[in-house]
């Protein structure tokens, strides 16, 4: 029988959302439109419309060593062109953000090629070739993995994921990169690292409490689904814990 990945245990909506994001065959729901130029502005790595700076000559123009792995692995577009390695970093609020660092890394590893994710408690960074990064960022920002008020692109000064939300529902940001306008639309006024943008970049309206609860991948006993309510997840985590603890004693199930 062919192996069919399960992606994760659990019977709750949170577990189901986690699986949805990780499963590369599942098409993530597109929630907003952000243009390529807007993505470039938010990332802040190059001026929109400018050529991609390179770290090395295109692969076609340089001699490659005789390497069996290089014959197996097809290079990504960015690697082929010799782009620089650049990053996007997200901070996700603990109050039911639609994704979170571990989840992002799992999802990206299943969905993208040629990436180097870094997972931390309050932020998650993914590095890759610039050309690929822009495509990946577009997916991460346009789909259900992003929520304008609870997720934000923060290259530096990320503090805020664990703080209570502001009165208007926005996650705290010391640099106030994005502002909730009077018309209810969130706009980026600074790029990832906090440099002011020449023009505002709209990323849509906050999705509202109901949507957020239905798309969350975070267990939270106060504002969402409690971890204890998902018996299957508990069983799984207890099994992993027991096996890891007994590892040195060669456990046999």
């Amino acid at each position: 029988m062919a192996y069919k990945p399960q992606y994760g245990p659990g019977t709750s909506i949170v577990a189901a959302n986690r699986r949805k994001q990780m499963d590369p065959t599942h098409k993530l729901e597109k929630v907003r439109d952000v243009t390529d130029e807007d993505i470039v502005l938010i990332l802040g790595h190059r001026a929109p419309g400018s050529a991609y700076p390179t770290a090395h000559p295109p692969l076609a123009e340089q001699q490659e060593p005789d390497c069996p792995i290089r014959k197996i692995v097809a290079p990504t577009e960015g690697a082929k062109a010799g782009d620089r390695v650049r990053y996007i970093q997200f901070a996700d609020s603990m109050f039911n953000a639609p994704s979170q660092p571990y989840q992002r890394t799992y999802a990206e590893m299943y969905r993208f090629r040629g990436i180097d994710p870094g997972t931390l408690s309050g932020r998650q960074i993914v590095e890759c070739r610039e050309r690929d990064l822009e495509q990946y960022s577009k997916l991460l920002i346009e789909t259900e993995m992003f929520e304008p008020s609870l997720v934000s692109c923060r290259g530096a000064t990320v503090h805020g994921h664990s703080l209570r939300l502001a009165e208007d529902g926005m996650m705290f940001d010391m640099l106030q990169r994005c502002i909730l306008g009077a018309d209810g639309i969130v706009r980026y006024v600074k790029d990832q690292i906090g440099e002011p943008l020449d023009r505002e970049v709209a990323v849509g309206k906050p999705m509202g409490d109901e949507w957020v609860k239905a798309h969350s991948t975070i267990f939270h006993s106060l504002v969402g689904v409690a971890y204890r309510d998902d018996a299957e997840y508990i069983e799984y985590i207890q099994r992993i814990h027991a096996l890891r603890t007994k590892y040195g004693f060669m456990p046999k199930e």
Partner: protein
Amino acid sequence: MLSPTTAEKYLNEVVKVPGIRRMVVNGPSLPAVVPYGPARGKPNPNSNRRTIKVGNADMELRVQVGTIVFEVEDTSVIEKIREVSNEFFKDINFPCQVQEGKFMKTSPTLADYCKYGPDADESVIGLIDPKKKDGPIIIQGIR
């Protein structure tokens, strides 16, 4: 966390309660210049950092207001603060919690000794960051 406008309204309500000796407005910092990262040293415009008027005094907010600590003269004042707070936050439909305890320094520490010397005025202990140059704001004449 509160916007400066709401914080201003709330503080103006709560300072009318007689018996508050000292007050600390706290929350995550909103510095005027970016303190670290690639944009370090650049100005940090932020609509949540502005000067508010509480009672008769102008107060420059440096934080997004999340917690306010009051030192009161006796326990009956706590009930009055609770009443004012619940009333205010019920109107704007925002959660609030009033806790009772000791949240402020009452005797000088080494840092205070370095800043104020041996005969520190007890009314300024625990109010401000000892590294900051400016003193506390005095709100008076509101009763």
